[in-house]
């Protein structure tokens, strides 16, 4: 009994501490909007000067083997790092935003499924308050889209968009 009571107090204190440390769970929206797919978008910085890198990770994705090498085949740079990334459902009836960074981001409107598990899209690349390009595209699984963006610090910003699933 003498041992039991302190152990019980200890357990209660530990439980109390755990409850306080647990991050607040965000309230999930009760409404589920219809989706046509799910994409991964990443903003990548490419440069030949390693001292210009900002400490971001190497670009990689479980479904995109050798992403670094593939980027290097298109963009003539030695170093690539991920500045930001965003996983997003593509809504059927509303616009979807891919925002890996406030400085360069993308709007996607789904236009429905395409053959061979693809997705018909209208996409817009934005730089702050300015549209850089508007495009109609078909995105397919295992086939990423590389968008060559503006130059920065003697290198280049690149937007990668990849359809993870339909």
């Amino acid at each position, binding site marked *: 009994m003498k041992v039991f009571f302190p152990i019980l107090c200890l357990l209660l204190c530990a439980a109390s501490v755990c409850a306080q440390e647990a991050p607040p769970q965000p309230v999930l929206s009760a409404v589920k909007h219809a989706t046509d797919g799910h994409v991964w978008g990443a903003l990548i910085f490419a440069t030949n000067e390693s001292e210009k890198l900002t400490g971001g990770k190497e670009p990689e994705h479980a479904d995109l083997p050798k992403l670094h090498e593939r980027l290097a085949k298109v963009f003539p740079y030695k170093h690539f790092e991920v500045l930001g990334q965003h996983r997003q459902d593509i809504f059927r009836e509303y616009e979807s935003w891919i925002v890996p960074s406030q400085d360069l981001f993308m709007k996607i409107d789904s236009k429905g499924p395409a053959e061979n598990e693809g997705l018909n899209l209208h996409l817009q690349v934005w730089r702050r308050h300015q549209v850089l390009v508007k*495009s109609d595209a078909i995105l397919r699984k295992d086939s990423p889209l590389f968008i*060559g963006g503006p130059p920065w610090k003697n290198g280049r910003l690149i937007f990668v968009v990849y359809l993870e699933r339909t």
Partner: protein
Amino acid sequence: MKHPSEEQDIIRWIDGEMNESECATFEERLKLDPALATEAQKMRALSASLRSHLPAEIRVPHADYFNTQIEVRITQMALDEARSKHAATSWSAMFQWLTQPWFALVGAAALAVLGFFLLQPASPDDSESMILSSYTPNLRVQARTYHDHDADATVLMLDGLDAMPADKHISGVNIQRSEMEPELASTTMYDEKGAAVFMISHDSLGNPLISPEG
């Protein structure tokens, strides 16, 4: 709640859709019904204000580019039409050969081979992402699209973009989830830890506004 005919009377009076006798009758009613008179006059003032603040003509931004783009698309449509007409003519000419007596056998064999290939699974090209069309509002920017087979990726290259300032700090985030509020026309974005990072909404011109959250 108003009777529908009373609503119609107010609207027709404001918009000058009443004839002389109807107008006179309605204006007599207004004299006897101050509440109705106030409502009608306020709505008339609103209507006048709308007309003066909603211009019937607005200067088009990038007007020359507006026209140029229309011309480019019209020209493209004409080229596409010419190409498809040419293709149809070529097909027709090709099948004419097949009706010749001593080509009939060769033609039949060719069709058999064609049928064999059509039954095969879709070619690798059908599994690639594609850019169908692109358009850059800035005349100085050119968009080039192609599929890079070595990289196994579809490329949209934007040449001629202004560089981001070298001293600008471009930071990114890791967004794993977002919640949309259609009624507020806004979306809140959360990182891998569940913290709200951005909220995206629109200004009065419909352009995106991204505000840091938290």
